[in-house]
């Protein structure tokens, strides 16, 4: 299943890049990186459905939380 999914992502990427009128390398690179990220995410989820969700602004979150609890008298 993982192989099928990765192949599907690759096929989509190939098809779409083929459809482009022009292919500057920056665009192709960014495109491929994102597709690869999507494929890896899909593959990981297929392997292990309990993947942890990262908190991108975790430190801010914690800061806000502390401030909130400290000052919030509501």
């Amino acid at each position, binding site marked *: 299943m993982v192989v099928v999914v990765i192949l599907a*992502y690759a096929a989509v990427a190939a098809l779409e890049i083929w459809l482009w009128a022009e292919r500057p390398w920056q*665009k192709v690179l960014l*495109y491929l990186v*994102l597709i690869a990220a*999507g494929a890896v995410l*899909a593959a990981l989820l297929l392997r292990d*459905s309990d993947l942890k969700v990262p908190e*991108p602004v975790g430190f801010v979150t914690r800061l806000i939380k502390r401030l909130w609890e400290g000052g919030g008298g*509501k």
Partner: protein
Amino acid sequence: MKELVPDHQGLVLVMLFVVGNTLVFALGGVAGPDIWLAFLLATVLAIPMILLMARVRSLMGGASLACGLEQLLGKWPSRALAFAYAGYAWRLACYVVSDVTNFIQAVALPTTPQVVTATLFALLMLWAAKEGVEVLARFAAIMSKVVFNVLFVTFLMLLSQVELGEFQPVMYNGVKPVWLGAFQLLEFPFLEVVVLFWVFDCFRSKKSPYRVFLPGFVAASLILLVMASTSLAVVGAERYAQFYFPVWAAVARINISTFLTRLEAIIGVTFAIGSFVKMAACLLAASRSLAYSFGFADYRFLVTPLALGVIPGSQWFISTLLDVELSVIKTYPTSATFFQAVLPVLIWIWVEWRARKLGRGKSSPTQAGGQ
């Protein structure tokens, strides 16, 4: 190539975005019978934020988003900001998709894998996002007629079952539930409007952002207020928060002369359409801001990878209906606060300062670099 959306279509897009995937959920359930107070409070609290957003867009004048940002914020800060919001918008798109797929699984298709529905929705929103904001706004304009008329008719049909006593006693448990409900509403769905900041490419005039955002938002919040209060008055204040989908439950009870029954599917359909608009807008915002942050003029080539990422993403963030509740309550609010309230205020202050400086002297816009 500027994408220009007529004001009235932009307004409708804002309305559908806010009403979108929120409609069926138990909004502001913590406030109990005081739900309407929570709604009003949240609307009042949100309006300054909306105005502030419109103000920033208005300062850009007729310029496109990319040009305006670069002028007002400076090259690197604006790109970093765009990158951050790309992540936020993408994540929101994942949330919206999983809301829909979970809803469909819960009420209609229990054994169909969510990936299937998610894939179909992702493909459609991919298409919509590639077509651009003009087409999306047109789509919203035509679908809004269906959605809002359906809502209006269901509201009329629910009226006969409304029990006004459910709203009493007012503030039995004090102000706290009202505040809590209002904050819940602010983070989902009211202030998610910040995503729309990145959706519109440019506006017709300096006044357009106000004309689009403010009435659109207020109208949408009123619609949500009416629908939520009506369904609360139908299902009962105590039961409202216990349901995953109280509006659904309320509409399922419509029974007019034993003929007009079983109308809940219509609400489901409305919900799917509204959510679609929201997810397409989020995807569009994510692609546009990501493209901008990497310095590309055209964003369309980024739509496909981002949309394909949404499919696993939606399963990643929220995999079951239980997660919808838990994540909305636990994980989402904190990061949402950052993107929905803290950053916009910072941007606004920064932009006001820059604009004043640029406008007064035009001496050295390069000075304003670090932060």
